[in-house]
């Protein structure tokens, strides 16, 4: 039986003036899935998120959340969503508890929820202090706590690792994995920390200049690009031999990277040695998401 996706974005487009900020972006999230959204600044990540949660009206396309049309059935749709858009901006002049109470009242959920979500993000001990005194990491936790109020089916987090120390990042990652696994929550994460996305997400979409360039499971995207790194004394001669075999490659001063499947590796090394090229080092490696990302976006920085 096909399950209903938690979140469906169909041809989302936003045009402001003559500038197309987001161009026909479509994707789907299934229950229990963590979806990563990657892109450099100005790629349209935040605009897309703002359209998902109804802050910005799309020029074209629509969003469906848990089967509810986000525009026409806004309240039903948003009851399924917890989110942080951009920074975890909460009311600084109120305490953490007052902030949570504020949003709990909007959701009409019980007060006991506040203790539960504060416990989940390990913030219970600072709940009665003013948010103005919190560090960015603590505000991030409070933001996530707020998003978890009412046990939503979909969590949308913009840069959730921002401001957290490495231990905090790991803690939140484990929390998200646990929420996806145990409560079948769908989680949408945008991040510029590629390693983080690689570790946390099941599926990734890469957005650049308002369009999705690639989309797939993390495993698919990575395994589609396997290569072998060789350190040699004569890069020019090595390149000639690789070219003869019609293999894609790139080089620098003393290394050559060849896209090659595992069984084909030993014959290539043998051929190189036969041709008098000294091979000091040969290692198979998977291309990191970062390299793939740089390649996909034409080398523009991720930040």
């Amino acid at each position, binding site marked *: 039986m096909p399950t209903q996706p938690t979140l469906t974005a169909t041809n989302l487009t936003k045009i402001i003036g003559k500038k197309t900020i987001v161009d026909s972006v479509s994707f789907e999230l299934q229950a229990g899935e963590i979806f990563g959204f990657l892109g450099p600044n100005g790629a349209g990540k935040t605009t897309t998120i703002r359209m998902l949660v109804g802050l910005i009206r799309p020029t074209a396309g629509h969003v469906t959340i848990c089967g509810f049309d986000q525009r026409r059935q806004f*309240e039903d749709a948003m009851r399924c969503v917890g989110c942080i858009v951009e920074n975890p901006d*909460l009311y600084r002049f109120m305490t953490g508890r007052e902030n949570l109470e504020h949003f709990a009242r909007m959701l009409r959920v019980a007060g006991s929820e506040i203790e539960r979500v504060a416990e989940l993000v390990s913030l219970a001990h600072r709940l009665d202090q003013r948010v103005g005194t919190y560090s960015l990491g603590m505000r991030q936790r409070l933001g996530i706590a707020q998003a978890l109020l009412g046990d939503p089916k979909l969590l949308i987090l913009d840069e959730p690792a921002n401001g957290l120390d490495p231990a905090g990042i790991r803690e939140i990652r484990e929390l998200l994995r646990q929420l996806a696994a145990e409560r079948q929550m769908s989680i949408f994460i945008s991040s510029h920390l590629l390693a983080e996305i690689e570790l946390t997400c099941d599926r990734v979409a890469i957005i650049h200049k308002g369009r999705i360039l690639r989309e797939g499971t993390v495993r698919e995207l990575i395994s589609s690009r396997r290569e072998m790194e060789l350190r040699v004394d004569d890069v020019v001669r090595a390149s000639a031999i690789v070219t003869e075999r019609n293999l894609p490659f790139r080089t620098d001063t003393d290394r050559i990277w060849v896209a090659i499947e595992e069984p084909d590796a030993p014959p290539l090394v043998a051929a190189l040695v036969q041709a008098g090229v000294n091979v000091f080092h040969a290692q198979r490696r998977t291309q990191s998401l970062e390299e793939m990302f740089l390649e996909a976006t034409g080398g523009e920085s991720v930040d």
Partner: protein
Amino acid sequence: MLIPLVQNETLKILRRKRFAVVAAILFVIIALVTYSQYRRLSEQRDRNWRAEIQQRVASFQNTLRRGRINETWARSLHAEINRLQFYLDHDIEPNQPTAPIFVRTFANVAGFLLLPLLIAILGSDIVSAENAEGTDKLLLTRPVRRWKVLTAKLVTLWTFATLTLLTGGVMAFAVSAPFLPRGGWTAPTFTGFSIEKGAMQLDAVRQLPLWKDTLIAYGLDWFALLTVACIALLLSVLFRSSAAAIGTMLASLIGGTILTRISPDWTAGKYLFVSALPLADYYTGEPPPYDGMSMLFCIGLLSAWALAATAISYIVFTRRDVFG
């Protein structure tokens, strides 16, 4: 459904200490005025008020006889002379400072500038601060439609406008009562002086006990302040910074007042909401700055402004894109 939202907005106004600022401003001003009233009371203890008023009437009549004043001024002098004559005829001392009269006068004096300004302070950041601090991203992504959020804000602002007016009235009595005569709530007051075709009309003058007159004046102020709250909400929706919102409100209140005083010939000025704000004054008998501004016209005008401001607020707030 609206009650938890109003609770939220109330909490935010209180936590921002906006109402504390308003109460503090009211206290300082009322304390200063009480002190000056107390001084006046001690100075005029053994004064012949009839002689003083007769003197004022005479001086006004002299000014009129010299005839080098414009028509509007002449008209208001006539009105004032008629009013003072009325007090003389009925042997009522109009100017003795007492706590009840202070409370009553507060409605007139504060109603068109001080109180609207305080409402502007309360209301200016009710929407704009959410915008400036980025909290609107959370507020508007909860399962509550935007019109409900705005309605809660408007209701809260109305509540605080009412509270500001009540605080002003109660404080005026509480602060002045220890220093000024406290009695006289049942003393007769005269209202309903009106001008028609340049002549003082006394037919409509009614005699009311002071407490009743005070209630009516506060009721009129209340209506004016609800209108001001609607306009403050609109400014808060339109401006991202609360300073800009307060500034615009201040400029329109003061600018409008100056305009109506300086160029009463520019009759379109009667459609400004500022012209209609001193409802309590017009009720007491102060002539409105423009012809044809009956009480009904003023109330209608304020309603129209309130309605228009609210409509624009809702349209803009529910439709606009929220960017960072």
